[in-house]
């Protein structure tokens, strides 16, 4: 809309060119150029922001890859820990079986029949049993130690698996966080890129408008056919005496408006007034239709010269009802309203200019 306002302002300047002084045109041009510079600065800032976001996205992608690798390593560790735990459990069961076997064997041997009164050869068997029992006891102690150690290992493996599982969950949570942050940043990057593209387009349009304005100013300055008086001509119209071009509500006011999305200010030099679809758009005052046709992105535009350097500009029109160059009476229909941007009803953009100066239409239109 800022571009539209600037363009309409440029049109108004073109229409009022014969009545404007050269310094005022330069002033308007400087204002547009200033707006262009600001937009270019914003563009560069947005590009820098885009680069930062790109770096953030790259960093987040790296973090995401690290997190994924970490999670995979943790999963592998968990698998290994589970395998080791299963192995230890099998060994523990084997140790229990062996211990049970030896315990039974020792009991059987300890209770083996023998004579206390005869048979010195039994002394050798007794000694053999004794050393065997000692060996087996040592072996049993080893088995019990192994069993204990296995149980400890199993408990440690269990604890390790739990710890790894916790770490995995934590890493997964961190990864999810990184992923969410990445998605957010990515969406933000896309939005910023879109805004950058819009800003670039707007800057381009502003540049073109500035060039077109300069060209029109040159042509009108050479023709000078509507110049009836000097740049300091007076206006004999009382305030709050002009007709409303349409019956609808004011959709957007006059003056500066901040664009919250882009963080920039736009200058509106006219009103956007709602109307019924294809409703007739009336002239605010009597005057000559000096321009009727499409102009860049503003659609169909009509400019009425009310004399004394006073112009009214109507933008976003539909079908023209008057021919260029005819005199139109106050309240007489100029054209039909164009379609509103929101798709319901129609609208018309109205500017009132005195020379190159844009006036607040509400100060001149009849009070409602």
């Amino acid at each position, binding site marked *: 809309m800022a571009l539209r306002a600037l363009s309409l302002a440029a049109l108004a300047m073109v229409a009022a060119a014969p009545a404007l002084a050269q310094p005022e045109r330069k002033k308007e041009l400087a204002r547009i150029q200033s707006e262009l510079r600001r937009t270019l600065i914003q563009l560069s800032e947005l590009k820098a922001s885009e680069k930062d976001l790109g770096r953030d996205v790259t960093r987040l992608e790296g973090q995401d890859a690290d997190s994924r690798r970490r999670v995979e390593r943790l999963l592998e560790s968990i698998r290994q820990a589970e395998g080791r735990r299963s192995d230890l459990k099998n060994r523990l069961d084997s140790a229990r079986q062996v211990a049970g076997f030896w315990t039974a*064997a020792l009991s059987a*041997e300890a209770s*083996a029949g023998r004579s*206390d*009164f*005869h*048979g*010195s*050869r*039994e*002394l*050798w*068997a*007794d*000694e*053999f*049993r*004794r*050393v*065997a029992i*000692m*060996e*087996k006891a040592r*072996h049993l102690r080893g088995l019990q130690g192994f069993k204990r150690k296995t149980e400890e290992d199993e408990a440690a493996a269990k604890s390790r698996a739990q710890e790894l599982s916790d770490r995995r969950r934590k890493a997964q949570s961190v990864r999810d966080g990184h992923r969410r942050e990445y998605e957010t940043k990515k969406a933000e990057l896309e939005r910023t890129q879109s805004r950058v593209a819009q800003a670039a387009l707007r800057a381009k349009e502003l540049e073109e408008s500035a060039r077109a304005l300069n060209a029109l100013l040159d042509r009108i300055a050479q023709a000078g056919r509507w110049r009836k008086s000097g740049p300091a001509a007076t206006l004999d119209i009382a305030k709050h005496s002009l007709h409303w071009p349409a019956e609808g509500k004011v959709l957007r006011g006059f003056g500066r408006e901040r664009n919250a999305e882009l963080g920039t200010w736009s200058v509106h030099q006219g009103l956007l007034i709602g109307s019924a679809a294809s409703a007739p758009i009336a002239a605010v005052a009597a005057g000559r239709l000096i321009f009727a046709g499409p102009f860049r992105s503003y659609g169909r535009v009509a400019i009425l010269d009310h004399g004394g350097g006073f112009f009214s500009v109507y933008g976003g029109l539909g079908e023209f009802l008057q021919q260029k160059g005819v005199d139109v009476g106050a309240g007489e229909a100029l054209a039909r309203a164009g379609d509103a941007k929101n798709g319901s009803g129609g609208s018309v953009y109205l500017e009132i200019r005195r020379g190159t100066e844009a006036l607040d239409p509400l100060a001149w239109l009849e009070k409602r």
Partner: protein
Amino acid sequence: MRTRARVLWVFAFAASVALAGQTLILIERQCRSLESALRSDFRVVLFLRGEVSEPRVKVIEEKLRAQPEVAAIRYICADEALAALRREDPDLVDAVALVTDNPLPGAFEVRPSAEALPRLSAWIDSASGLADWSDVRWKPAQLQAILRARLYGHWMRLALSTLLCAAAALVLWSLAVCLRAPARRAERQLTAAGALGGCAGLAVAVLEAWPLRRDELLWSWPSFWAQAAVVAACAALGWSMSLWRCEH
């Protein structure tokens, strides 16, 4: 009639004495046999700790041999002991071989003399300092059995000796009486009744012991002279009784 009754009485008395004497002889013989069997089997086995070199084994053997009251001594190495044990109880050896090859150490088998048995603890104490033994084994119950068999044998021998002394005294007394008066027919009958009673008592004792013979591994039959002595003692008893009766 009275003579006949006296003969029967002497016969029965002599048979009872012979039965008791033969029983004592059998028990004494059994104790002696049992002691001999247990003593011949009795060993004190001194097991060495760990591997010991052959010269060291020789030294220890000589030290043991120098100990008093050692009847026999023999060193048995671990492999030899295991081989012998495997022959006697292969299942046991195979069961233990699961754990290790041969857990047995080398050992000395000592057979103490009979006189050393009552003082075996003292003997083992003196032998314990001769080497680093991992274990010293013997069968205390076997030792107790030997000593008890020896004790009962001595006891039986003592009783039999007393009885034989008494019989000898009777014989001497009878001879002294006979020197003063010639022998009569009744004396001969009672002497013969005593001898016959002794034989009958011996026979009864043998019959009583005969079923036990199959139950006892260490059964030993009394010597002929011991039984002849019993019969002679019984005859002397009958003879002396005839003399004692005649004088009154």
